[in-house]
């Protein structure tokens, strides 16, 4: 048995894998959120396109000299998928083990230090998994986008989607659950990697709380912006221009 298998076989090894993949997923989330917030940047005067759409094109064109159109994007997608699958498989294995090892609950269960966030990592994580699948079918492939989806028209697609109240609700609820997951996870990963101690504990927990709130609110801003009318309906002129430039 190789040293990596031996490492992954133990609960501690698995937990370290969950922490590293969780940290990578978090870094992706930061980049993704910053990209989304370009919805608030309006129209690019140079091209006459929405800045959000320009950004989406940039992601496809980035590095096209080397890897072709969408090459870097696909490489990143594959990398992300691998990291995501490793995270999910590892934590599901751990959760099943942990469920089996507990001896059932006491007549009066009393929690002294665990939080709602720490107790809902597995169920919240499963909801996030369902959400991620929905989200890709919604905005990437358009399969579950029932309100006028056109490839490449990111701003218009988002505007149309978030005029529907239940779509806004799904996104906001998912982001609250993500915030809870990150509140426990972002502190927990330091403990798991052996980087926490009594002196760093309080600052790290505060940092996790702040980052969780920033990420959740940062993602929620876009659906709420479209739903509330702060982000205006796409003008037909800009939309056709986007189509021409594609």
């Amino acid at each position, binding site marked *: 048995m190789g040293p990596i298998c031996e490492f992954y076989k133990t609960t*501690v090894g698995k937990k370290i894998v969950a922490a590293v993949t969780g940290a990578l997923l978090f870094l992706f989330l930061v980049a993704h959120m910053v990209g989304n917030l370009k919805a608030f940047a309006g129209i690019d005067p140079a091209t006459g396109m929405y800045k959000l759409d320009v950004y989406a094109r940039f992601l496809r064109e980035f590095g096209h000299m080397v890897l072709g159109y969408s090459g870097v994007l696909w490489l990143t997608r594959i990398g992300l998928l691998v990291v995501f699958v490793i995270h999910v498989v590892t934590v599901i294995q751990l959760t099943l083990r942990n469920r089996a090892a507990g001896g059932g609950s006491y007549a009066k269960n009393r929690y002294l230090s665990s939080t709602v966030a720490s107790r809902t990592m597995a169920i919240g994580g499963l909801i996030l998994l369902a959400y991620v699948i929905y989200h890709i079918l919604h905005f990437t492939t358009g399969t579950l986008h029932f309100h006028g989806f056109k490839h490449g028209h990111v701003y218009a697609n988002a505007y149309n989607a978030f005029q529907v109240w239940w779509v806004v609700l799904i996104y906001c609820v998912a982001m609250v659950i993500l915030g809870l997951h990150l509140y426990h996870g972002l502190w927990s990963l330091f403990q798991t990697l*052996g980087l926490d101690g009594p002196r760093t504990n309080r600052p790290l927990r505060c940092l996790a709380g702040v980052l969780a709130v920033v990420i959740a609110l940062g993602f929620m801003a876009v659906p709420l912006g479209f739903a509330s009318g702060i982000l205006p309906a796409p003008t037909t002129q800009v939309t056709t221009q986007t189509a021409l430039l594609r």
Partner: protein
Amino acid sequence: MKLTLYIWRQKNSSTKGSFERFQMDDVSPDMSFLEMLDVLNEKLLVEGKEPVAFDHDCREGICGACSLVINGQAHGPMERTTACQLHMRKFNDGDTIYIEPWRAKAFPVVKDLIVDRSAFDRIIQAGGYISVPTGSAPEANNIPISKDDADLAMDAAACIGCGACVAACPNGSAMLFTAAKVSHLAILPQGAPERHRRVKAMIERMDSEGFGGCTNHGECQKACPKGISIKFISLMNREYIKANLASLARDKGEVTAQ
């Protein structure tokens, strides 16, 4: 004091247990929790009934034998206190008290409130030896150890191996116990040659005994009668990462000219 007790009764590990209700009419607030159970058992013996089986030895909070979950809390409501050091004055007249054994898959019930904690012994065994000269006691200051390290190692070594951490953990995890045992040796120079082998072996043993993994709830450090910090879990994780990196880097077999 008058108390209503609901005590877990279970014949052995292969039968199902249930709560039995007992009424206590004359409990002195000066009794310890275990003395209160002694009084109950005397009464049961006189009535020709089976006394309640529970674990105890030193009754002064140092051996780690007593192991009661009292109203859902391992060792009861008092922080940093074993069940044997808990006194009835912590309860009120007319209280209802639930008394249960440690619940975890790796700690099967032997009878009533007694569980089999030999899995802990096997984790210790897996740790193996440390290389120190035997014979007459060594000169105390032969190996210099900084005060900080000595204190930290002592904080870890305060673990009495009672298993409250496992009982309090929703995952039935023995991470706090194993971490305390790994840490107190990892901090000291004695045993350093075996440190990588030791942390791996103890974690593997912990897993194979059927304990769960850590999800950082932190319930264990609240339940611990010795106030052992989950800092030691962090320390063991780090020790485990180092051990694995070291074994990746280590040359296998004969080293030839390159």
